């Protein structure tokens, strides 16, 4: 089974029961939307991120992979490492 690795920074590591990194088993590429649903099924605090649009999501968490900020419909390949970062804010 392939995996997608999730690396979480504060405060999201607390959402992952205090773990900095986890892996999620996947059968192939998944969209960011699907990835968040998978996280929500395993870790309840992520469930609050379901059903948001991109702007609303990015006000809560930034998903980053391969040099890009991810949008909900972006596809993440198996084997990827996705970082969960606090929102871009301020100036």
């Amino acid at each position, binding site marked *: 089974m392939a995996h997608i690795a999730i690396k979480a920074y*504060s*405060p999201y590591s607390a959402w992952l029961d205090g773990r900095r990194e986890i892996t999620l088993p996947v059968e192939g590429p998944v969209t960011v939307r699907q990835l968040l649903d998978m996280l929500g099924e395993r870790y309840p605090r992520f469930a609050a991120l379901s059903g948001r649009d991109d702007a609303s999501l990015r006000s809560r968490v930034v998903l980053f992979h391969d040099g890009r900020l991810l949008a909900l419909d972006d596809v993440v390949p198996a084997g990827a490492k996705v970082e969960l970062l*606090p929102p871009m*804010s*301020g*100036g």
Partner: protein
Amino acid sequence: MPDGYCGTILRVNLTEGKVSRQSLEEGLLRQYIGGSGLAARFLYDETTAETDPLGPDNVLAFMTGPMVGTRVPTSNRFAAAARSPLTGLWGESDCGGRWGGELKRAGFDGILITGQAANPVYLWVEDGQAELRDASELWGLDTYELDLDGEVVCIGPAGERGVRYAAIMSGGRDGRAAGRCGLGAVMGSKKLKAIAVKGSSRVRAHDEARLTRSLRDILPVVKEHTAGMSRNGTAGGVLAFERVGDLPIENWRGGSWAEQAEAISGPRMTDTILTGTYACGGCPIGCGRVVEVNEGPFAGVKGAGPEYETCASFGSLCLIDDLPAVAKLNELCNRYGIDTISAGAVVAFAMEARERGLLDEGPAWGDAEGAVRLVHQIGQREGDLGRLLGEGVRRVAEAWGGRALDFAIHVKGLELPMHDPRAYFSLAVGYATSSRGACHLQSFGHVFARAAATLPELGYSEPLDRHAAEGKGALTATTQDVMALFDSLKLCKFILFGKVTLTPILTWLDCVTGWGMGQEELMRVGERISNLRRMFNVRLGASRKDDWLPLRILVHRRGAGGAPDALPPLGRMLADYYAARGWDEEGIPRPEKLAELGLQK
């Protein structure tokens, strides 16, 4: 006089020791709104090309706007403006806190200060009255030590001693700063230590019930979308900025600082030294941090915590991955009254100068304690190095000459703020053309490019290709006009993160003034203000030759991080920008454009 305005400003002539009042005409207000716009009008009319920024003839303006003191969220602000001693050009800085609202409640829309006092004074303003008082005993106090009744703006020792990037501070330990452009040095040159204000009147809105309805709809949306900023402050975004190549590193040479960035981030602050938060008057976001450092070499720090700009300027720019150290440097700057952006940039510049053998003293990269010592020297203008570095990177590089010019990172003399134009090309043309020198807030180009803020009324609601040149000139012209309005209405730009766009702002302006101003007229006001500030600089000799970026930003590929190879094609974007503005190829507003805006001589 429309609601929202007091209809009166104070005029203070420090040479003569006189205070007087001036009534404002509604026509003037409708053309320039307040804040930056009104200050630009007064400064253009009352200074000349010969005005000495640190002389008695410079005019120091403090201006509020119509929403200030009302229930419109994030509007409790003021603009400070003068000819800048750092750039020699238009100098302006925006500040939150509570002072702006208090000035309105005391019965004044603004204050214009001219002249130079023989001895230190402060201005006392209370409910329609104002007087100058002796400040001899206050001279030399830092901004935390100064203790006056009422809401206070003041300078610290850096402003008194003419550090060219000295700030005007407000709020004591809950520090807010009119940081940029050295306006604290202007205040110091006038021997004006502080302005203390107490007011008890109410700022009326034209239609309070409609305002209530609008706020009831919008405030929950604002709070929802700014929750991250409430939780982690403006430094919440450090990690994400680093990942996309927006965080400046090692005096703008580095491309990646992935492992260290977390150490200077907002979440780290939240998890370690944060003891509370604070908000400017009427703000539902509350991005202000209160921190306390209780152990280690920087124990004793207590009060306002560093913002994003400070975490970057003293952190990644200087390679200091130590949050208590950054908090200490922030506190020192607040106490001395120094802009933390320019100060961090000066320290990074000194670190590179040392590496290159141009300096044989001062801190090496990452030397936090050395940086602390250097900021003390700058704040006190102590020793040759402290005196020299208080001049800002442009003057130091010009004094040293040679290779120093290659790594003095500024535009028009103002050190770059902490967002990299190689990450967002819109920032390149924004920095190059901002009237006050390198400024991210006068265009907010990086924010609109990633659609973190949107202007659907003007066609900007989707993310843009951050590394495309096409359209960035026009985008910048448009967003500069909108930001000029924010700076004149005195709205905080962070409310844009709360999904506020032009439509509710027009509603609020109408609720407050009853003007019924439409979008076209409002945008025309923004364009008028942008052009007037440009003409202020044109009169001082500015043109396309000044609308440029440091060589390092234009030609140095960082080779790592989120934007390893990107270099902004500034010339192309600049041409597009001038065309969008109706300026000639030298960047001078055409006579027909000025006539269209009512700015002809």
